[in-house]
């Protein structure tokens, strides 16, 4: 496969054995027979071609409010191993996959932006993988920044979402006001226990601070918020650290989402992470069939976290829910959007300064 990205990756990984695999069936069958197929898949980087569309609407859920986000499936899966990760269930194979046909990606992005001219768009690569986890190998962030630098008049924000501190390429890149660098945050205890392979939350915030100093705008996702003994203090502390490190006017948005997953993921979590306690809390079926904390417990968590955030930054930061009901918006954020278009418009408003 003679794509420049393939050559770049192989050059960066010259010390690691690579192999051309014309048909991955046998490989996937062998991985499927392993005691931990998901873990085995994470040991293999597959460079291939995206034969279909790169850009898709974010797989939001029925009965809850979405925000019209679009995901760009440049890379799939992730070397981190978060216990709650839905990719353990969602992806059909467990290999870390890079789609190297970047020219096709740019063409599709061109067409997509053209078709949606005049509409405030939010999109990103961190939904089915981590946007920066492999950036030292792929250099994707440079490519996206270069692409969007030429589109500064387009009404689009492109998010690179990560749990890592892999910001070297960002620090060496020119700026683009279309690019938002986002971090998933959690309490330190939950990050240590449930986000295996990820740096501490403090280190992520420090990386965000560096990126802000460089001139990028950032975003944060408290998702998933997890209940455990001492959760109030845990989230309070990290919110405090966040706002003493990052000026509010450089934060594009903050999202909140509580732990939620399809029921079938429960057995996978129990099997792969027998020490994790996240499945033992009071999780019930939501209207979309996913397991979520019983609503009053969720509401209490959101109220506490939202009040910590508002105490720090008042209304200077756009705060929104991921996959929550209108009732939750109303009771926590004191406003109930009529639909996802309203949320889309709210979040894609231009920033001042």
């Amino acid at each position, binding site marked *: 496969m003679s794509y420049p990205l393939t050559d770049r990756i192989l050059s960066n990984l010259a010390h690691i054995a690579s192999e051309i695999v014309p048909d991955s069936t046998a490989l996937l069958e062998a991985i*499927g*027979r*392993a*005691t931990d*197929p998901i873990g085995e898949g994470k040991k293999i980087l597959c460079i291939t071609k995206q034969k279909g569309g790169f850009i898709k609407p974010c797989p939001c859920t029925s*009965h809850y409010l979405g925000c019209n986000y679009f995901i760009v499936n440049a890379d799939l899966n992730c070397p981190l191993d978060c216990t709650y990760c839905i990719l353990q269930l969602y992806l059909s194979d467990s290999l870390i996959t890079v789609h190297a046909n970047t020219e096709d990606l740019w063409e599709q992005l061109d067409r997509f932006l053209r078709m949606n001219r005049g509409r405030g768009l939010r999109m990103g690569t961190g939904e089915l993988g981590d946007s920066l986890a492999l950036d030292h190998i792929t250099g994707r962030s440079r490519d996206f920044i270069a692409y969007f630098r030429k589109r500064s008049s387009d009404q689009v924000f492109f998010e690179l979402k990560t749990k890592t501190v892999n910001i070297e390429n960002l620090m060496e890149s020119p700026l683009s006001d279309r690019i938002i660098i986002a971090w998933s945050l959690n309490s330190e205890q939950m990050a240590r226990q449930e986000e295996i392979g990820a740096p501490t939350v403090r280190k992520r915030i420090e990386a965000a601070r560096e990126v802000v100093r460089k001139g990028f705008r950032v975003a944060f996702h408290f998702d998933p918020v997890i209940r455990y003994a001492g959760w109030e203090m845990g989230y309070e502390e990290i919110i405090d650290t966040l706002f003493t490190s990052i000026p509010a006017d450089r934060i594009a948005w903050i999202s909140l989402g509580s732990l939620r997953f399809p029921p079938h993921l429960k*057995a996978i979590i129990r*099997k792969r992470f027998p020490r994790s*306690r996240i*499945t*033992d*809390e*009071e999780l*019930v*079926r*939501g*209207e979309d069939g996913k397991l*979520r904390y*019983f*609503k*009053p*417990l969720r*509401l209490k968590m959101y109220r506490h976290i939202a009040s910590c955030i508002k105490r720090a930054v008042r209304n200077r930061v756009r705060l929104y829910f991921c996959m929550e*009901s209108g*009732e939750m918006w109303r*009771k926590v954020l004191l406003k109930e959007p009529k639909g996802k278009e309203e949320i889309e418009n709210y979040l894609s408003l231009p920033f001042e300064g």
Partner: protein
Amino acid sequence: MKYEDVALERIAFDDSRFRISFFFGLSELKRSIAEIGLINPPAVVLRSNRIVVVAGWKRAEACRRLSFPSIPCRILEEPSDLQAFHISLHDNIMTRELSICERAEILKKLQDFGVGEETLVTGYLPLLGIPATRIHLEAHLAAASFDSESKEFIHEENTPYPVLACLIGLSRSERKSVLPFLRHLGRNKQKELVEHLMEISRRDSVSIMSVLSAPEIETVIRSHFFSEQQKAERVRAILRRKRYPALTATTDSFLAAVKSIAWPENIAVEPPPFFESEDVSVKFSFRSSEEFGKKVEELKAVADEGRISSLLKSFSDD
């Protein structure tokens, strides 16, 4: 293939190396053999001068209990135990449905006969109708190591894999404490009870025996008023409360509010599933527009009493 009449006293019934079935009734088979004789001879093999049954344990045992002096047997000449066992395996899988317990036993014996993990997963699991994953192999091998009482339960209940997977997480003494309840519950309730027990144990960092020793559960177990099935259902309900304290408290509050309202006859009032939405449902049937109108009027009278808001408040977070 050689057939011979073998004296039953020569058959080593204590050698169960090829045996996969341990829990079976023999009365029907004995009656049949007594009436028409042994139609299908068991297969046996000679091992260290002992005659060991390879296939047809039930038939051989039935004949022994009928005090037959000898029975015709098919004498196998397979040099290795694995080769002989293959005959038993195919004899069974081609002629009947195997229980999960028997499939577990087969896999354990194949492992004992030297078959490697890879071959067990890729070759034998599909043959036994089991998904070809290491997780399934490990679960079945674990079940094969269960105590006799647990195996008997699994065999008799034809326990499905999801329930088996739960039972594997329990120790022998924990299973011993739980099985008496499981016998009186359907499969979904069995799975629910064991899962709740394990989840409460993990969440509260207490042993499963501790959970089962809770005073309210002990009271049920010691009661002389409840049947075994009623005890099982009561224990299940207690565990559900412990597992979901906030949900059950809200449910109780809602039901109390429903009960406090004088609803018209034949009206069903249902909360939103798991109280996730804000919508309460009211259901009724009607066969005529008059009947429909009458019900609507009766419901309107309930609304006019002002009790609906207390019903909605019973599960509201405001």
